[in-house]
């Protein structure tokens, strides 16, 4: 599976993997890991039909195969602990290999993938042995005046930003469901577009080993790009507030590569991919990037009639078996995503039931004491996620204080200016305001927790 590569004497070569995606009747080349369509990449016909708006185009299937194949490679291959990057060679059968191998498409695709994952990718495309056809092709009628699509998950930002944008745009904005849950009622007989990502990726005989999942950014950007192409929208709304879009790239830790999954720099690369692939200019827009999640939530609750819907959203990424209390799934309450949510709810002057979270009480003086009474299996990993989450929010809050970070802030402002077509001083001022607002919200949250809280004790304030 892994092959050695040449490198300079000072430097270890990147760990490498080569994968051949195989359609029916194909065999992998020597030394390549197979990824079988139909076994490792499985499609649901019914969900694929939700991508058949007018007539079926092979590019739809090809784009989905590319997303799935990239995800397969990313998750099957564990990152080395001391060196982030890997080298991944991937060959994929598609209906139109000339289109995918065209230098503009290839260059843009490689640039976007290397940038978002921090790996070195080498993709090539060959012709499929047999074309794929959708068994039933019943087009879904859609309005002809769709201006924008918005990728949509169960998250708080998804709910709030979709609500705020819907208020502005009404039915000229269309939702694209990420993940595998559907957003339409199962009883509904009316067909709706983009009800779910129509494929699943599986490993043969074992579980995936890599959880950093940077390729999710590529998957979500590609699937919303595909949807925008199909409904002829020229805009994709990224439903992420400032901390979620920019935070993970502003305060990376150790040898971990910056997380650009929701960052304008990645999306500007994806715009080039979409243009090269579909021949249409489709832009990613960030309506809430200069606001904190707390500000976005506050606006949603005050301005939208479905404001209370925020309480049903889900921010935690931890799996069921790690975060159930008495057989009922909860959000963990301590990972970075949960702490950001709790801080934002506090900043918006709202509250949640304590049993929303496994860690009901963040005012507790120790980590274990903060968990719900019925929760018995506290994992070491959860303790470590909690520390990482606390420090992430604290570092973001302190970013402007430490002189050591001046270069990072200046660089970020310059890069954001370029990606969002702003002047550097505009981008710098907006970033500074965002960070100051985050700091106010974080300090307010810590004040509310009190000095004896285990969260406060982990911060440099203690």
């Amino acid at each position, binding site marked *: 599976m892994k092959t050695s590569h040449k490198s*300079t004497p000072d430097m270890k070569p990147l760990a490498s993997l080569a994968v051949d995606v195989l359609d029916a009747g194909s065999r992998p080349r020597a030394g390549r890991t197979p990824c079988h369509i139909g076994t490792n990449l499985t499609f649901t016909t019914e969900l694929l039909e939700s991508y058949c708006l007018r007539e079926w185009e092979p590019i739809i299937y090809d784009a989905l195969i590319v997303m799935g194949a990239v995800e397969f490679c990313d998750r099957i291959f564990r990152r080395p602990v001391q060196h982030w990057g890997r080298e991944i060679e991937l060959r994929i059968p598609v209906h139109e290999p000339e289109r995918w191998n065209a230098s503009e498409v290839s260059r843009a695709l490689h640039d976007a993938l290397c940038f978002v994952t921090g790996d*070195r990718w080498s993709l090539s495309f060959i012709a499929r042995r047999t074309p794929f056809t959708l068994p039933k092709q019943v087009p879904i009628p859609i309005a002809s005046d769709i201006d924008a699509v918005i990728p949509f998950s169960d998250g708080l930002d998804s709910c709030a930003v979709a609500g705020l944008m819907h208020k502005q745009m009404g039915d000229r904005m269309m939702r694209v469901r990420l993940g595998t849950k559907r957003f339409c009622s199962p009883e509904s007989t009316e067909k709706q577009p983009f009800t779910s990502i129509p494929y699943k990726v599986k490993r043969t005989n074992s579980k995936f080993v890599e959880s950093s999942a940077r390729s999710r950014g590529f998957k979500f950007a590609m699937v919303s790009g595909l949807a925008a192409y199909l409904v002829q929208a020229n805009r994709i709304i990224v439903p992420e507030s400032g901390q979620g879009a920019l935070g993970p790239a502003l305060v990376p830790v*150790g040898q*971990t590569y910056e997380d650009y999954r929701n960052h304008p720099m990645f999306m500007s690369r994806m715009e080039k991919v979409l243009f090269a692939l579909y021949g249409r200019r489709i832009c990613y827009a960030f309506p809430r990037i200069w606001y904190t999640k707390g500000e976005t939530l506050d606006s949603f609750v005050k301005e939208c009639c479905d404001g209370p819907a925020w309480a049903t959203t889900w921010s935690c990424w931890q799996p069921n078996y790690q975060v159930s209390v008495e057989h009922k799934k909860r959000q963990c309450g301590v990972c970075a995503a949960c702490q950001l949510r709790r801080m934002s709810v506090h900043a918006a002057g709202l509250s949640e039931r304590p049993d929303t979270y496994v860690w009901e009480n963040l005012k507790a003086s120790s980590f274990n004491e903060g968990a719900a009474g019925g929760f018995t299996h506290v994992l070491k*990993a959860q303790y470590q*996620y909690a520390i990482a989450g606390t420090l992430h929010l604290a570092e973001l809050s302190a970013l402007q204080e*430490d002189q050591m970070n001046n270069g990072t802030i200046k660089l970020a402002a310059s890069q954001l200016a370029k990606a969002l077509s702003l002047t550097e001083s505009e981008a710098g001022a907006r970033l500074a305001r965002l960070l100051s607002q985050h700091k106010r919200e974080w300090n307010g949250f810590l004040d509310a927790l009190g000095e004896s809280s285990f969260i406060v*004790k982990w911060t440099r304030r203690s």
Partner: protein
Amino acid sequence: MSDGPFRSLPLARHWRELAKLAENGNYSREDLADAAFTALEKTWRKDVPAALVVAIHGLFLKPQHRLFASDRVEEVEALSDLAAGRPLGRLLIEHAAMVVQEGLSGEIGMIEATQRTVEAWEARTYRQIEEHYIREAPPSLTRKVRERVWNALADGDRRALARLLFSQQGRVKRPSHARKHVGLDEGVAL
């Protein structure tokens, strides 16, 4: 932020050595600054491809008077393939592009880009050490290590390091461990 950031990865050996020295009050600020310098140099050697160093060196030192800054930025960014899979290498490209955009060139520009890259890397490594100590050490030791590593990084001569990293002569032999103080006059400073 649908998932992550997750817990940080294990500390690299040379950064773990710096943290261990910081635990021990017998090592001075100078010893720690020296260990930080060594750790940065080793990280650089392992994560910045020599071909990238040579290419950036060439771009900064070639005559620029006929090119617009935006053309020069594009030239720097075009090197990104050389740094694919190498986070520190990519960071160097980003800082080099920024420095070029600001109009700096020649050796001054090159050193400035390297210095900024090194500073940014220090910050992320400091965060990693902090996270590991909060996980595993008592609060008093965590505070001590935080403070002493912070001071060591602040004391480092980053400009000198930047010059060293970009020297075409290659690496200068430096001790991999802090020197033990064994002489009669080498005790802990009073």
